[in-house]
């Protein structure tokens, strides 16, 4: 079986997660993630055609709440905990690229 995960995959995932990994860490994580994926491959070996994908482990559906207003938080208190605030808003660094 080919390598379940490449260095490039690990670097890509790290970039998406905004993780700055050293060369050694990439090396180490590639091995570790390969081990985890190898375990998943054991399950893939089973015939699961008739088994629906599990989206949630609990046998529950329709956990709903009534459309009733609850008090919100105090703005001053919330903004005081933000790294930066301006103009009653959360101040964030300049964003590159458009919203998804």
């Amino acid at each position: 079986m080919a390598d379940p995960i490449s260095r490039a995959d690990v670097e890509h995932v790290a970039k998406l997660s905004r993780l700055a990994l050293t060369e050694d860490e990439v090396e180490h994580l590639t091995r570790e993630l390969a081990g985890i994926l190898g375990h998943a491959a054991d399950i893939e070996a089973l015939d699961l055609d008739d088994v629906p994908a599990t989206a949630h482990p609990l046998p529950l559906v329709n956990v709903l709440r009534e459309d009733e207003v609850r008090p919100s938080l105090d703005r001053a208190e919330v903004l005081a905990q933000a790294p930066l605030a301006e103009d009653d808003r959360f101040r964030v660094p300049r964003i590159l690229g458009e919203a998804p």
Partner: protein
Amino acid sequence: MSEAEYEAVMGLEVHVELATATKLFCGCVNEFGSEPNTNICPVCLGLPGSLPVLNEKVVEFALRIGEAFHFDVPERSIFHRKNYFYPDMPKDFQTSQYDSPICADGYLEVDGVRIGIERAHMEEDTGKTTHVGGGGRIHDADHSNVDYNRAGVPLMEIVSRPEMHTAEQAKGYVSELRGILEAIGVSDVKMEEGSMRVDANVSIRPVGSDTLGTRAEIKNMNSLRSLGRAIEYEISRQVELVESGGRVVQETRHWDESAGITHGMRSKEGSEDYRYFPEPDLVPVAPTDAMRATARAAIGELPAARRERMVAQWGISETDARTLVESPGLAEFADATVAAGAPGKDVTNWLSGEVLAYLNETGLSLAVLPLTPGKLAELCTLVSDGTLSRNLAKDVLGECLREPKDPKAVVAERGLAQVNDEGELGALVDAVLAGNAETIEEYRNGDDKLRKKKRGFLMGEVMKASKGSGNPQVLNRLLDERLN
């Protein structure tokens, strides 16, 4: 090849904010225009340890949409996390339905053509970013400020199939969609305020081809009119590009309303990879028969059925019925006026004529006018029983649109009641004729053209003498009897 040798293919993605009292997963108020960051809580801020709970009203509204657009509603649907780094969501992901939407495979009839709707799914809206410095443009900005009031507001995203071919058809689709969403009470569908947002996927292909061309996604149209303009511009742009040897690239393009063009947005670094995975904090939605029955019962008469009924019962034209149904509140007003005893055709004429013109001119909504269905019905009666000529009725209506007055009171106050008495009107005609012997002479000796002119003059004098209150049919007859 010329533009005529290409066919445009379009699909529309419509985001509509649902008119619930609270957000999708928390009890914060769902409201447009609140003070920034006043409708926020641990859930919609994504604070550690907070847990989302789905709003039952959102599910009900989604099921109404399911009914109204003939969707299949699968036994269960689930939410996913769409992961990205962009500060419009404090959680760094947006909760949305991905490959398992609540509504699948519906359709909408637009002018007799069935447009397929691939899916409609629930998702949360994002916060609002303001870019500071650099003239408000994102790339030149110094930093951004974020208001999370809108983060977590419930949306339905309704995705059509790529089955439209002209700007007109796309506008027709959105107009019909908007009318239905309003009629079933799930949204206030205001494109101008952003509670309904339309993105258009536009591509072109040679006529006769059945493969889809590369599409551009056009955003930022805030009215039906700008949707039409943006699509027309984009089709021409793509045809010119291909004709000059270029190639359409898959990208998002922004519609610039004042310049009348679309322009490409700097593309994101690297490819999009949202790493969707099932939201572990939410359990599946499995609509029961009872939930679906509630949604079905809540749906009133849909616009197409309402138009059909008005045409059949009131004998009005399809165009007039469309005018009533597409103007907010007008159809309900018409129904109430007819229920108060007025004929549908008269009611339609007043509403689609004078009343609509007044609304357009003043920018007011029907709800704030002093005119009520009862008063309009009274006006219709004053015309049909001969008390008022249609011309005077216009004046009276004008006054009732501006002032909280009854038509009958206006008539009494201004002495406008139409005079039908033949004796009284005959005396008026005689007096006018006695003072215009020369004109009568010219009338009797003139050719057809001159006769028509002189008769018109005399009729005008007679109307003037009656101060506009003489019944014109009676006056015309009396005048003719004396002249011929």
